[in-house]
Structure formats: C-alpha cells, structure tokens
C-alpha cells in the first residue's frame, strides 16, 4: 500500500470554483463511491463521495469518530492538532456518545429553537439597517454573514456582544488550514479558558440563558464533569459560528448568481424554507469532512475498507450525487432536497441544525425583501474561498440602488 501511495490523488483536492466541488469527487463516485487518496503526512485514506456510501458509512457501527485512534485521518497538521485536542461528544462513539449528547439535545429541540425566531429577526433587521445606512459597496462577510451567528450565539449562551470579536478571532485561527499546530493549540486553550470563565460567571450570576441553565441542570450532578462541561460550552460557542456565517455568505452569493430563481423567491417567500434546504445541499459548507476511522473490515461499493483505515465521508460529494438528486450540479430551489447530508448523518449529525435553519431562513427572506436591488459589486468569477476548514468566501462585495 505504501509503495503505491505516491500515485494516489492528494487530498484535499482543489475546487474549480467556490460553488463546485473538486472535479475528482465525480470520478470517485463513478468508481463505486469511494477511492483511496493520499494525505499530507504520507498516509492514505478512503475518500467517499457517493451518497449511499456516505450515509451507509456514517451510520455504520464499525466506523468510529474517536480522534485518538492512530488511524484517524486529518486533512492538515493543524486540523490534526485541533481535532485530537478537543474531547467532546463529537469525538466519542456509542454508548459514551449518547450519554453526553443527550445532556444537550433538549436545548436544541425544534419548538425551543423556533421560539428564538423573533430574536434572530431583530438581530438581522438591525444589521440590515446598518448596511442600508452605509454607502455601497459593502462587504457582506463582515457586515452580515459573520455578525448574525455571532450575535445569535451571544444572546443564546448569555455572552456580552463585545466578546464576539475575541472568539471570532480565535475561531478564525483554529479553522485556517495553514495555522501551525502550536498556534491551533494555543487558540484552543484560550477558547477553553474563555468557556471556563463563562461557566464560573454563570455560577455566580445566573441569567436567562443556555449556559446558566446548563450550569443549574448539570454542574454538581453525576452525568457530566466540569471539564466535560467546559469542552461542551467551547463547542457550543464555536460550532454554530463559522459554519452558519459561511453558509450565509455562500447562500447570498449563490442566489445572486441565479437571478431568475431569486426573483421567484422574492415574489413568494413561502419558498424560503425549501430554498434553504437546496442551498445547504448545493453549497455543502463542510467541503472536506466529516472524517472517521474503520474499527473493523467493511465491504462497500466493491471495495474493502480494512480495520484501521481512515475514511473521509465528503458530504460535499454525496450532495452532488445524481443518483440521489437528479441533475445534482444544478441549483434548483424547487427540488426535494431535504434528504441532503449537509449536516452529516448518523448519531453525530449536527445538533444545532434547527438554529442554523432559523438563521438562514431569516437572513435570506429579510435581505432580499429589504434590499430588492441587491447585486454583486464584483465579477462573479472573482469570488474566492480561503484555505479553510469550511467553504469560506474571502469577501462578498455587494451594491444596490439607494432609495432617494
């Protein structure tokens, strides 16, 4: 295996545009849905881009999320440092995983998150007020995309708005693929220290927020240790931040690149929820993940994954599988897209997805209603993504006709 690894394609692969997955993903799909790739450290792993294969493997008990496993694959040295350091329910297998995840499920129940809609709407409206008061062009990445989830997280978790710049900067260091392992670890330590201090503050001065509720429900109990709670609060601060932020920017850019569908959407806002599902599928913000390791031999798609092999279940490939979505490369806000795997699949599927949906639906309905003439202030071909753990637009300059 090692002697032939030089000939294998390297992973991560380059995307032709921010809006299209690497061309190599389709070839892998045609070869049974998975194929071997070469990683930065010379090891090999299975890249999985077939929809059925991704779903099957992500729900297979012979597949592990344990980042401590020696065979676990990582896309870069920095990601290895980051993922091996943070032990939360995200990196655990059943049954331990269920014990810890179930502590947090109640806070993300659909009805509870739906009740946050008016608060999210206020946040979006304030940001759009500010944008409309600025002479165009405006870069929507800092002015809107990063702010909506940051302010929402501050409100939900009970953190002062001013703190958002601090965790944004730390998160940015952690998610930049070129950050050194040492710096990733330093940023992670700072995030954990912040989460620890937040818990201490909520112990002293409880308020009407999720962290205060967690402290009251769990601290001192026998289900979760303080260390586990600190790691989980760190996860709650970061998990819904850059993911949603980048989805907002990419969603607005995608709609601006499909003006006829955008016109339909503006004329009929009841299309927004389905449009968001299609945006989640089409964009697939997790362009190089999730990652797993096989703990037993698995036969799939005419291939054999051996115990100890790394597995990269690229949801960005699965969501463009024609077998699951007819003419999958086409953006179509009318299609049935709810079976996408943008939030992953299996027991680790994103816990915060109801909140992501509320934020995305609110932003998209509001920005195009309030600024109907919104358009790109740059050549669409010039939009680019960073070397980042998620698809992250460098900038999204927009302009509009100012009301006289």
């Amino acid at each position, binding site marked *: 295996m090692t002697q032939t690894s030089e000939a294998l394609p390297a992973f991560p692969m380059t995307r032709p545009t921010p809006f299209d997955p690497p061309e190599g993903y389709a070839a892998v799909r045609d070869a049974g849905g998975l194929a071997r790739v070469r990683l930065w450290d010379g090891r090999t792993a299975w890249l999985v881009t077939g929809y059925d294969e991704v779903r099957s493997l992500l729900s297979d008990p012979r597949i592990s999320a344990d980042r401590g496993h020696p065979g676990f694959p990582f896309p870069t040295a920095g990601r290895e440092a980051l993922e091996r350091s943070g032990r939360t329910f995200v990196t655990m297998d059943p049954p331990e995983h269920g014990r810890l995840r*179930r502590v947090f*499920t109640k806070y993300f129940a659909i009805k509870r998150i739906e009740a946050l809609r008016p608060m999210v709407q206020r946040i979006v409206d304030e940001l759009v007020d500010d944008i409309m008061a600025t002479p165009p062009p405006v870069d929507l990445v800092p002015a809107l995309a990063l702010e909506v989830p940051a302010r929402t997280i501050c409100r939900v978790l009970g953190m002062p708005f001013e703190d958002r710049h601090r965790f944004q900067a730390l998160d940015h260091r952690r998610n930049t693929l070129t950050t050194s392992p040492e710096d990733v670890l330093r940023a992670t330590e700072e995030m954990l220290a912040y989460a620890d201090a937040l818990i201490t503050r909520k112990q002293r001065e409880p308020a009407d927020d999720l962290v205060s509720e967690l402290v009251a429900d769990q601290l001192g109990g026998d289900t979760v240790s303080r260390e586990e709670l600190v790691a989980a609060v760190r996860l709650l601060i970061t998990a819904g931040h850059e993911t949603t932020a980048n989805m907002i920017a990419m969603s607005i850019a995608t709609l601006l690149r499909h003006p006829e569908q955008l016109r339909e959407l503006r004329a009929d806002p009841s299309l927004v929820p389905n449009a968001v599902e299609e945006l989640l599928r089409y964009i697939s913000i997790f362009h190089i993940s999730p990652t797993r390791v096989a703990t037993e031999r698995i036969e799939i798609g005419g291939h054999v994954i051996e115990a100890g092999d790394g597995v990269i279940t690229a949801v960005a490939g699965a969501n463009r599988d024609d077998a699951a979505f007819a003419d999958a490369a086409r953006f179509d806000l009318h299609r049935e897209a*709810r079976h996408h795997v943008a939030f992953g699949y299996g027991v680790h*599927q994103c816990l915060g*997805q109801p909140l992501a949906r509320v934020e995305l639906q609110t932003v998209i309905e509001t920005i195009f209603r309030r600024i109907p003439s919104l358009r790109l202030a740059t050549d669409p071909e010039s939009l680019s993504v960073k070397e980042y753990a998620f698809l992250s637009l460098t900038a999204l300059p927009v302009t509009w006709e100012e009301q006289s």
Partner: protein
Amino acid sequence: MKITVEIDRCVGGGQCVMAAPDVFDQDDDGLAVLLDPDPPAGLADDVQLAARLCPARAIVVEA
C-alpha cells in the same frame, strides 16, 4: 401503517418533527415522541421521509 420508534437509538436531531409534525414530537429532553403510531394514509409520505431522515435509524415503518 404501523410505526415504532426505538427510543434508545434517538439522538434528538428533530428530523422526524420537521418531516412529519403531525406524527412526531419531542419530549422535554428533546427525544422523539410518537404522537400517532397508525396515522392516516395521507401522511404516509411524511412518515417515510421522517424514517429516511432519521440519522439514528430509530424509526421503523411497517405497511
């Protein structure tokens, strides 16, 4: 139609509530609650989607 939920498998993702809100709800812990184990035939598509979306494959539907 006969629906069963293997509650030990549930991970509280709420997919069933989104797909078939007349048939599924969530309890105070965010775990699935089956409101109607034998819903009218008109809800069959919603129920099938709920079973398909469930990330823990906790929903079993028998015709």
